[in-house]
C-alpha cells in the first residue's frame, strides 16, 4: 500500500537533506519528487535519487543557479501582475458593450 503523497514527500525531503549533508553539496531539482510506495525495497534516499531529475552541485553553483531561476520566476509573476492590473484599469476606463449604442457605437 502506498504512503500518502504528503508522507512520501516528507520522507523524500528528509532523505534529500541527509544526502546533501553527507555529500556537502546542494541538490538542484528539475522535477518534483514522486510519491514513494511504502512497499518499496529501496531506501528513501535511493528512491529520491532514482525518481527525481536532479544534480548534486557545489553549494555556490547550486545557489547561483537557483538565484537565477528564482529571479526569472519572479519576473514572470510581476509581468503577469502588471498585465492583470493594466487589464483591470482598461476595463474600468472602457465602457462596456452594453452601454454603447448598437448603431453608432457611442
Amino acid at each position, binding site marked *: 500500500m502506498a504512503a500518502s503523497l504528503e508522507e512520501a514527500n516528507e520522507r523524500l525531503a528528509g532523505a534529500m537533506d541527509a544526502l546533501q549533508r553527507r555529500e556537502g553539496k546542494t541538490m*538542484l531539482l528539475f522535477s518534483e519528487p514522486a510519491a514513494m510506495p511504502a512497499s518499496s525495497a529501496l531506501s528513501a534516499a*535511493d528512491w529520491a535519487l532514482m525518481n527525481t531529475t536532479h544534480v548534486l552541485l557545489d553549494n*555556490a*553553483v547550486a545557489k547561483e*543557479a537557483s538565484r*537565477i531561476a528564482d529571479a526569472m520566476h519572479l519576473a514572470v509573476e510581476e509581468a503577469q501582475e502588471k498585465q492583470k492590473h493594466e487589464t483591470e484599469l482598461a476595463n474600468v476606463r472602457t465602457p462596456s458593450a452594453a452601454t454603447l449604442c448598437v448603431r453608432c457605437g457611442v
Partner: protein
Amino acid sequence: MLTAFAPPHLQELFLDHLIPTVQQLALSALNAGEWRKALAPALGVLQFVLLEDCWLTDQLVHLSQPVLFRTFFCTLSEVWKALLAQSDEDLGIEEPDGLFAGTYRSRLIAVLEEWEEETNLILTQRFDSFFRRIGQDVPRLRILSLPGSSGESSSEDEAPDKEPETQPRTPLKT
C-alpha cells in the same frame, strides 16, 4: 497595431533576464574557462524554462529584434555544447558512489533532449512562418539535435552529416 495586443511585460523577461544570463554570465565564464561558473547560469535557465513556456510563447521580441531572438537560441546551444564537452569533474557533476553512480550526465542530457525537442516544436509552429517571411533563418536549439531535424530550410540543412561536438571548444565570441 500588433504590439497593442501583446503582453508587453514578458519582453522584459526575455531582454533583461534570459539574454543577459546566457550571453553575459554563461558565455563570459566559458570564455574564461570557468566551467562551473558557466554551468550555474545554464542550469538556472534550464530550471526556469522547464517550468514555464510563457517566456517563449508570450513575447514579441522576435518581431522587434529578430536577429537577437534567433541568436539567443544559437548562443544557448553553443553554451550547452561547450559545457557538455567538459568532464564531469570539471563541471562538478560527479555523482556520489552508490547504486546510481555516474548517471548525472545522462540524466541531464535526457532533460536537455526533451526540452530541446519541445522548444523546437514551439519555434516551428509559432515562429517559422515569420522568419521565412522576412527572409531569415529560422531559430532553433541545436544542443543535441542535428541541423535539418526540425524542419528548418536554412543553409544548415546542407550539412546534415556534421557530427555534434564532443571535444572541448575554443573560447566563444561574446
